[in-house]
């Protein structure tokens, strides 16, 4: 009946039971997400943002380089000429329409790199769920920082980023918090910054 084999199995089972019992009293690494948020990487790729210059002018010049660079074909730009009466950006042209399909977007950041004026950037915001598909096509109404929008730093100057001399970008209007790299418009929840006890 090979009893010794079964006895060995009993030992293994007891060992397994002791492990699970020990785990039961360990500290749990779970972060109760909506009430406490984990600090993410400073250069996290989240929702896009079209930024403005300090004087309120749009940085985007409607060159469509982002649209060409986009590997997912998520960006549609339709440019138009600035006129003295209707001036949106300092250059000759501006984006009359600027749409990003966030469902197609793979958040690679190529648009950010392609942009010659640092107009399009990826913010760390990631909570964009909605009930309708159409709601994921973000137009200028939602991408563009409001004229009175918060002050922030471009991704290259966030903590941990590579500093770059991009000519006056530090004075750019953005909604990203300079110090934490976190969404500055969000102030509802506590931020979990320490990483002690986190698994993996």
């Amino acid at each position, binding site marked *: *009946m090979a009893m010794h084999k*079964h006895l060995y199995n009993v030992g293994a*089972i007891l060992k*397994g*039971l002791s*492990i*699970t*019992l020990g*785990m*039961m*009293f*360990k500290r*749990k*690494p*779970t972060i*109760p997400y909506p009430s406490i948020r984990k600090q993410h990487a400073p250069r996290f790729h989240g929702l896009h943002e079209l930024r403005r210059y300090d004087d309120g002018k749009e940085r985007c010049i409607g060159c469509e380089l982002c649209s060409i660079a986009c590997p997912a074909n998520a960006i549609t730009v339709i440019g138009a000429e600035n006129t003295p009466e209707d001036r949106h950006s300092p250059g000759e042209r501006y984006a009359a329409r600027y749409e990003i399909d966030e469902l197609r977007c793979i958040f690679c950041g190529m648009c950010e790199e392609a942009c010659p004026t640092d107009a399009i950037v990826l913010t760390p915001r990631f909570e964009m769920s909605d009930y309708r598909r159409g709601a994921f096509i973000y137009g200028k109404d939602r991408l563009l920082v409001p004229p009175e929008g918060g002050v922030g730093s471009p991704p290259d100057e966030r903590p941990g980023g590579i500093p770059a001399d991009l000519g006056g970008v530090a004075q750019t209007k953005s909604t990203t918090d300079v110090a934490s790299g976190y969404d500055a418009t969000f102030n509802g929840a506590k931020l979990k910054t320490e990483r002690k006890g986190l*698994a993996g």
Partner: protein
Amino acid sequence: MPIWLVVLVKSGILLFVVITTFAYAMLAERKVMGWMQLRPGPNRVGPWGLLQPAADAAKLMLKEDLMPRTADPLIYRLAPFLSLLTAFSVYAIIPFGASSAGTWAIGNVNAGVLFLLAITSLGVYGISLGGWASGSKYPLLGSVRATAQMISYELAMGLSFIGVLILAGTTSLDGIVNAQQRLWFFIPQFVAFVVYVITAVAETNRSPFDLVEAETELVAGFHTEYSGLRFGLFFIAEYVNMLTVSCIASLLFLGGWNAPFGWTWVPGIVWFLLKVGFFMFFYIWLRSTLPRFRYDRLMAFGWKVLLPIATLNLLVTAVVVAVWS
């Protein structure tokens, strides 16, 4: 009060208690399993997740009651009730305190253990018929497994009872507990106790013997086709059965409401519930530790290991008792 009214009131109270226990046993299972897997477990509904059972009940009740076209309508609809009925009817004879103390059991049957065995064996009919009547292959496989598993473990379980019966000299549950006033039976009948605990897990189709549901192989086994409240009834039956075998283990092997170390200042019911609670915890503990048995090994284990051990234990007990007295 007329006797029927007393029985009715007691049944009502017990039904409420058992259903509530089921609800919180389910929550406790999810919590404890969560902790053992380094998760916090359900904690969104109510403080500390305490209203989770209510949310689950509401969800199950509001879900659509589906039936496959190939199903046998009458038996398909009846099976969950059968499962639940047998699960609950055991509580007609389970004593929660000494009969000398009065009103702790609905009925004090002098052949209590036999009644227990009979009723708990009937429980498999709900599973078998439910799986059979679903008219679909995974439930059928589940129900076939349930039947085979029941036969192979029922025998060892019955044999493990007999050792206790020989020591107690009675088949009444009350008498068995009273016989354990000096020494709980899990010490002289340790082998029978181990065999019982293993077979009890198999009997209630719980992990690691949950081949009847076996998610990885059989989708959900016998209740694959069930939804809504009918699935809920199977669910309740499973947990009530867990509770039942925990009660039996406490009564037969851990001295029921007898206090350990002579600490009689704590009421007997508390001791009884503590013992039952320990077994419930043990179930959950086992589930979050062990992987599922392979089917042929389950059969081999039942027939080639548990049955011989239980028989041997019975023989030794019988000889020792005969020589002693």
